[in-house]
C-alpha cells in the first residue's frame, strides 16, 4: 500500500505563481510575432486554468476535510461529464459522440480506480482517489478524443472502401474493423510512446512533483511507475469503448452508411 508523507516541504506563495505568468506572456508574444493567432486562446487557457484549479483546490480541500467517499464519487462524476463534453469538441465528425465518450470515461475511471483499490495499491480514501481519479479521467479523455477524431476522419476518407465491403454482405462491424483498429491505435499510441521515453527525454509530472515536495527519488519513481501503468489501462479502456460504441453511429440498423452530416460546430 502506498503511504502518504505527513507533510510537504515546500510552500508556494501567490507572487511565485504570478511571476510564472511571464512565461505565458512569452508564449503570447511568440504567437503575436509569428502571426499564429493564438493570443486569445492563450489568454482564455490561462484564465480558465487559474479559475478552474482554484475552484477545484477548494473542492479538494473540502473533500479531504469531510473525508467522505460520496463527495469523491460526485467530483469524479463531474469530471467524467465535463471530460465527455470537452472530448466531443475534438470529435465533431462523429455523430452522437457524447454518449460513447461519457460511457468510455466512466468505464475507464471506474474500472481503473476499482482495480488499483482492489489490488491494494491505494487506499479507498479521498487523498488517493481524487488526484489519481483526475489523472485517469484526464488521460482517458485525451485518448478517447484523439481516437474519435481519427475515427471521424477515417470514416470519411474510407467511405468508398467501407461501402464496397458492405456491398459484399459484410456487417457494419466487419466493414469498419480496419478503421476502428487504426483509431484505437491513435488513441493509445501517445501514452505508449511517452511511457517508452519516460526518464530519458522527460520527467513525468508526478515524479517531478514528489521530488519538489521532498520525497525520496525511489518513492517518486515507484509512484510514477504505478501511475503510468494505471494510465495505460485507463486509456486502453476509454479508447476501445469510445471507438466500439461510436462507429455504430455511422451506420443504420440495415448496415447502410449514413449520409455524412455537417460537422457539429462547438465553442472550445
Amino acid at each position, binding site marked *: 500500500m502506498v503511504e502518504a508523507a505527513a507533510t510537504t516541504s515546500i510552500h508556494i506563495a501567490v507572487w511565485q505563481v504570478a511571476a510564472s505568468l511571464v512565461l505565458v506572456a512569452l508564449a503570447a508574444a511568440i504567437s503575436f510575432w509569428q502571426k499564429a493567432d493564438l493570443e486569445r486562446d492563450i489568454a482564455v487557457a490561462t484564465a480558465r486554468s487559474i479559475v478552474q484549479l482554484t475552484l477545484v483546490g477548494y473542492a479538494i480541500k473540502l473533500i479531504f476535510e469531510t473525508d467522505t467517499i460520496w463527495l469523491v464519487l460526485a467530483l469524479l462524476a463531474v469530471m467524467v461529464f465535463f471530460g465527455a463534453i470537452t472530448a466531443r469538441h475534438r470529435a465533431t465528425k462523429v455523430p452522437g459522440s457524447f454518449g460513447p465518450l461519457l460511457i468510455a470515461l466512466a468505464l475507464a475511471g471506474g474500472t481503473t480506480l476499482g482495480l488499483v483499490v482492489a489490488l491494494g495499491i491505494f487506499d479507498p480514501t479521498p487523498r488517493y482517489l481524487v488526484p489519481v481519479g483526475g489523472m485517469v479521467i484526464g488521460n482517458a479523455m485525451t485518448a478517447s478524443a484523439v481516437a474519435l477524431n481519427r475515427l471521424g476522419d477515417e470514416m470519411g476518407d474510407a467511405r*468508398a*472502401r467501407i*461501402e*464496397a*465491403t*458492405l*456491398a*459484399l*454482405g*459484410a*456487417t457494419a462491424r*466487419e466493414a469498419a474493423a*480496419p478503421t476502428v483498429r487504426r483509431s484505437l491505435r491513435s488513441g493509445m499510441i501517445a501514452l505508449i510512446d511517452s511511457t517508452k521515453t519516460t526518464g530519458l527525454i522527460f520527467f513525468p509530472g508526478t515524479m517531478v512533483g514528489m521530488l519538489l515536495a521532498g520525497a525520496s527519488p525511489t518513492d517518486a519513481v515507484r509512484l510514477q511507475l504505478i501511475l503510468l501503468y494505471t494510465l495505460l489501462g485507463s486509456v486502453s479502456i476509454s479508447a476501445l469503448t469510445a471507438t466500439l460504441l461510436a462507429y455504430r453511429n455511422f451506420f443504420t440498423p*440495415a*448496415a*447502410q*452508411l449514413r*449520409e455524412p452530416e455537417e460537422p457539429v460546430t462547438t465553442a472550445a
Partner: protein
Amino acid sequence: MLFELREVGLDRGGRAVLDALSAGIPEGSTAIVGPSGAGKSTLLRLLNRLVDPDRGEIHYRDRPLDSYEPLALRREVALVPQLPALLEGTVESNLRYAADLAGEPLEPERTLSLAGLDPSFAERDVTKLSVGEQQRAMLARALAQQPRILLLDEPTSALDHAARDQIEAALAELRRELEISVVLVSHDPEQARRLSDWVLRLEAGRLAGCGPLAEVLA
C-alpha cells in the same frame, strides 16, 4: 420481373435524386443509361439496399426488397462500385474475404479467369495493380461470392479502350458461362448496345425510357 420499382423516390440535400420512378428489370442483361447526375448509381445502390428509398417500393422476385435480410441480399445481389476499393492485402486475400462472407468455397484460378485475370494475379498486392486490373479484381471479388445478380456501376469509366475491351469481353464470357443476371450502369449508349438486351434510361432522376434495347436505344 427480377426487380420492380413502384413510384420510387429518394432525396439528398433537399433535392430529389430519383422521383416517381416506376420500371421493371427482367432476368438477363440490363443497362441503366443516362447523363451524369441522372441518378443511375443511386438506383443501382437501391437494388442491394446500400440505401433505401424515401418513397415508393421496390420488389425483388415478387417480394418487397426490404423484407430481405440486407446482408444475405447483398451476397446474392453483388454490387461492384465505380471506383475500385479493395482491402489491403493480395488479390487472393480479397477473394477469400468475399467467399468467406458468403460461405462459398473459393476457386481462385477459375474466379480470376472469369474476371479476365491471369491466375498469377492471386498473389499480387492490390496496391501494385493498375486501375483496370483493380477493376477486374473487384469483379472477381464479387464473383467469389457466386452471386445470382451482378450490379456493375460504370465498370469501364476510368479505363482506356484496351482495358475497357478486356472488361467487356470478360463480362460477355461471364454471361455465357454462368446463369447470372447483370445490371450495368453506363453513360455510354454504345456500351449498353454491346452488353445488354434491356435498357432503363434516366434523365434528371426520372424515367425517360424502359424496355428492350431495340426500342429504347433505337
